[in-house]
């Protein structure tokens, strides 16, 4: 177990380094330079730009800046926003709970709906139920999540009035209302991802059911319920877990859009503003934060994968 964790963690370190290097390089790739973004067009004289660049340390070699940026990031210092002048980490921490709530609830929705549908279809592969589920999932997959969100708002907020217009309430403030506010956004977010999980579950389960070990155990007299519930299911869960890990990254991406749909004050809306304003520190901070979260979640999934699948463990 420790060996498994150690081997997975060593794989993650170069991943983190490369990703942070890519994000850091953005500063140098954005045209018009950081200095002119801070100064605005009117005050962008060459002298002023040079002064600001010295102030930002942009005159120093690139690797030196990278190391000091990484060093700062590790201590929770992601610089200050060009626009608001606030520390980036403060702004991010303020908004992170909303994003995590959204992605977390969306993930639960995706897994619950996806696995349920997939099991129903997989147990009856080739029958009408299976074809219906397959039809439903391919439809769900084609729906743009943000549009589903709009439709949900239209029906349940504007027409029926079952949910408030601005639904987000921090968990710390009132857990019940937080959950209430999460219902529509997480449904919209999770629906598409659930299709992916459902398809994977269906395929995995029907393949497991057609496998030799199911025959062996059935022929040896194990009850079908036990063969399915204990043996086929655990085998089927291996690829399903991999698919679930994949959806996490997708959900974080989609949540950036979903926050706008449901006016949730999360990292996504902050990032969106920074793209429009070329507020580089905020963009870099937000990007590195989300990437690190996604990488860590994937690491956990990877370890779980090793726990579930003995073949994936280091020998």
């Amino acid at each position, binding site marked *: 177990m420790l060996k498994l964790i150690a081997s997975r963690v060593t794989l993650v370190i170069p991943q983190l380094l490369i990703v942070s290097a890519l994000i850091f390089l953005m500063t140098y790739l954005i045209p018009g330079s950081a200095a002119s973004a801070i100064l605005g067009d009117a005050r962008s004289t060459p002298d002023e730009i040079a002064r600001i660049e010295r102030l930002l340390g942009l005159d120093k070699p690139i690797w030196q800046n990278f190391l000091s940026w990484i060093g700062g990031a590790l201590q929770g210092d992601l610089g200050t926003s060009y626009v608001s002048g606030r520390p980036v980490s403060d702004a991010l921490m303020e908004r992170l709970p909303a994003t995590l709530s959204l992605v977390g609830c969306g993930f639960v929705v995706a897994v619950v709906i996806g696995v349920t549908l997939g099991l129903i279809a997989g147990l009856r592969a080739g029958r009408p139920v299976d074809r219906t589920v397959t039809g439903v999932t391919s439809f769900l997959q084609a729906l743009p999540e943000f549009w589903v969100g709009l439709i949900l708002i239209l029906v349940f907020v504007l027409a029926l009035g079952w949910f408030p217009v601005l639904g987000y309430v921090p968990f710390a403030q009132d857990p019940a209302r937080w959950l209430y506010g999460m219902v529509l956004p997480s449904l919209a977010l999770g629906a598409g991802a659930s299709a992916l999980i459902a398809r994977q579950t269906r395929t995995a389960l029907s393949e497991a059911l057609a496998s030799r070990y199911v*025959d062996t155990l059935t022929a040896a007299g194990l009850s079908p319920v036990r063969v399915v519930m204990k043996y086929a299911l655990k085998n089927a869960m291996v690829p399903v877990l991999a698919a679930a890990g994949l959806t996490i990254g997708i959900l974080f*991406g989609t949540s950036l859009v979903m926050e706008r749909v449901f006016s949730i004050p999360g990292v996504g809306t902050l990032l969106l503003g920074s793209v429009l304003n070329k507020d580089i520190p905020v963009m870099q901070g937000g990007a590195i934060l989300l990437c690190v979260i996604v990488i860590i979640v994937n690491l956990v999934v990877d370890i779980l994968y090793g726990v579930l699948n003995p073949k994936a463990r280091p020998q």
Partner: protein
Amino acid sequence: MSDTVTIRTRPRGPEQLPSPTARTVKRLLRQPITMIAVLWLLVVLVCAVTAPLLAPFDPNDNDFTAVLQGPSAEHLLGTDENGRDVLSRIIFGARIALLVGVGSVIIAALIGIPLGLLLGFRGGWYDRIGTRFIDIFDALPGMLVAFAVIAILGRGMLPIMLAIGLIFCMNIARMTRAVTLAERGKIYVDAGRVSGLREVSLLFRQVLPNITGPLIVQGAILVGSAITIEAALSFLSIGLESTTPSWGGLLGVAVTKMAVQPFMIFPPGIAIVLTVLAFNMLADGVSQALGSQRRRRLRRTDRAAARAAGAVGAAAAPDADAVLQVDDLTVTLFSEDKRVPLVTLDHLTVGRGEVVGVIGESGSGKSTFARAVLGLLAPNLHITGGTIRIDGKDMTHAPPSQWRKLRGGTIAAVFQDPMASLSPVHTVGAQLVDTLRAHRRLSRRAARVEAAALLERVGVRGAAKRLDEYPHQFSGGMAQRVAIAIALASEPALLVADEATSALDVTTQAQVLDLLLDLRDEYGMGILLITHDMGVVAEVCDRAAVVYSGSLVELTDVKSLFDAPQDPYTVELLAARERRPRTIEARVPASEEVTS
């Protein structure tokens, strides 16, 4: 017994075999859903190309006297916040959707295909490092990549295409790599290499054409996703400027005016959904058309209808000594348009303590017969005639519950590939303990002790320790011993061994066969041994049945089978064994659909 499986040798002239592409297209034309999808995509394409002609208004014509209107005779889909005609903007939006969708997938393909080809073809360190890099890149949320690209390059059509292309390129690279890896091992690649083709031309001229099918499927799906991402970006107003009419941009306006004019979210949303759905359906259709030769749909047939189809003959008298008695058995394959009898067997018995071999080539129906005896026939196979008696009980049309009782102690099975016969994610101990507990009232601990004893009995050394190991930690021979132990847990009267030693090397095979004989002596069970190997028959069987093309051609004791074969086919089989290299392919029946 009618000889219904006729060998049809179709003349295979080049004029009768259409090109693979033509065949795929022909199959596509027969899929109604794909055709509907294509039709819709054609509508979108026509809109995109002839937008200025089709659109009733200029898409940027403001009319501030008629803003945010619902559908009317003048504006069929209403107007937006500047009084611009929504229908016209939707029609022009088709241009953006297709351009961005196709453009970004082309960019992704230009980066991803060469990368995937290289990694898959070179293998080794290139592959390991490259795949790791792809994984890193692919784990990032796509939307973040898009944000970054747009922050660097600004808004506009090209940055969006580049952003989406970058998101997708790793997906395409990963897929190209996987398919290339599979193609690399094939003969034509070796042939090309031997004949001195350069790597680049080998990759692009030889390998690439062979992986076009899967790439087209993936490409169609990605075009759909690209349209969604473009819509999301425009919706967030970091995509295209509002002077360029796009579906996502319309939705971006709609969300701010939803309280005033909710209708506006429907036209662009439905346009997106239908188009994405059409691309997905097209991909599904193409993948089905490409693969339908191999993947025949298993159709579950009605048990009652199957029973009715078979003539119910007079049941032969049961033989008291036999653990297995088969009379006039017919197993029929029900496919979409025809019924093919796969197995017709007039009489076969296995007595207590007797080893009876069933020998035949692959495709002769011997495995189908084994599955019929076990009550494990695939859903499209049915017994349409005759009887199967196990331990005196007529099991021909027994319901699953009756089979279950039988498996509880009368009958058990060992299959060919020992690794596939054991669940890879459960310990060997768990599988043994569960089987033991299914038959006897045992505590978990007692069952574990019993399991260790049983493993030891079948020749697994250090059994108590190995209970906690997984199948992949066992060698093939040892894994087969485990499978035998699982079968023995029920102390069966009849053991069906379906090619149980075929996957093992010769020495291990002999050991496992010896074990089976020992166990036969100890437990007094009958063994039905399905095999293609005359040597195995000679070594362990008391009697043997020779099966050809689903029918029994000879059933006799082993000595006379080898000394005085009666049927010409048996003679041929024996001859084939002596002169190994020669195959008797010419006589393999034309039943490729047979599930072996």
